[in-house]
């Protein structure tokens, strides 16, 4: 059995699914994925526990004659990689993903062999898990922080910097009043 804990660093989890692409669909899939940026915010922004994620099409395994690799090992069929760095429990994350990406999934995993016909819900989740590749070594610089904590603290930092700049020279009373209003009013 694969070592599941190798996928964790802090509370962060590294998920990867490598799915074979249906013959003749690689161009369409490539174009569709590349066009996502033009249509507006990434669909992955709807999966709120995603820190960073990518779709990569791997047409083959690279090989150069200079490598002196004795045998060929071409990928018989091109693959789609989906890799996500996410928060917390994998199963509930995949539930959220399969729900939130319902509009796009048929165009993405729907173009892969073995994907359930409707490309959503529990069936899609099982398909992705079946094709999961475990991490060997997973590094997360701030694995203890969730997406929402990262966003909240980044905003707070901006807020404190702006506050620190404008409140230089205030008297103690003014300073305390301004600080309370900005950070402790509740």
């Amino acid at each position: 059995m694969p070592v599941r804990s190798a996928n964790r660093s802090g509370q962060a989890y590294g998920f990867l699914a490598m799915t074979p692409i249906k013959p003749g669909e690689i161009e369409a899939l490539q174009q569709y994925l590349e066009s996502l940026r033009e249509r507006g915010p990434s669909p992955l922004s709807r999966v709120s526990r995603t820190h960073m994620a990518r779709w990569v099409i791997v047409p083959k395994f690279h090989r150069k004659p200079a490598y002196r690799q004795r045998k060929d090992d071409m990928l018989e069929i091109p693959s789609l990689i989906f890799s996500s760095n996410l928060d917390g429990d994998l199963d509930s994350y995949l539930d959220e993903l399969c729900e939130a990406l319902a509009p796009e999934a048929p165009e993405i995993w729907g173009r892969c062999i073995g994907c359930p016909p409707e490309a959503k819900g529990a069936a899609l989740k099982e398909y992705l898990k079946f094709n999961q590749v475990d991490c060997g070594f997973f590094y997360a610089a701030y694995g203890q922080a969730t997406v929402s904590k990262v966003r909240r603290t980044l905003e707070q930092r901006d807020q404190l910097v702006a506050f620190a700049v404008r409140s230089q020279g205030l008297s103690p009373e003014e300073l305390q009043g301004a600080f309370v209003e900005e950070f402790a009013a509740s």
Partner: protein
Amino acid sequence: MTATGTSPRNIDGQAISITVFSTVKWWGRLFLPVLFFVTARVPKLTRTLVQLSFIHFARWSIVKEIPFNGPPQPKQKLNYPHMYFESNFNGGWEEYIDAFSHILTSGMASFWGSSYGFPKALPVGPFKEYIQDNETAASHYYSAYPHATITMIKSALELDDKLAPLKRNAKRMDPDAFAAAYETLLTDAQRCL
């Protein structure tokens, strides 16, 4: 703007993705799992990676077999294991590879030494070429906080811890005590601001 040196498809704001597949020699099949196991458990080995501070998330994974999803997928038996590497980082692609080449020389040799075609990590030129040859551009890349860089995030998290007591107590302190505590906080947390 700091994210440069790679395809625009690999970039989201300040975040850059790199994806590399390499074919692994027979002995890597034995060596790599041990390397992964040890690296995860010995903090000293990742200390430099932490100090370099330009990686959000990175991973190395081994693909030993391709799961069979039914026809028309042919059943494929791989002759070699294949290693997948991904990183999510800040700064320019060139500076990133340069840093790995000079500073993590033995680390690079450990992770890629068992891959076919890996030149040494130094000199930089051939190492960059090797990465470029084995790299695949993402078709779509997403970051939940694209404009933030690693050190900003680490600073933000540290600042949160330092600010918490003052936020809690601010209302009930007397103004002079508050002003002194605020000044202490700024002094203490200035590297986060």
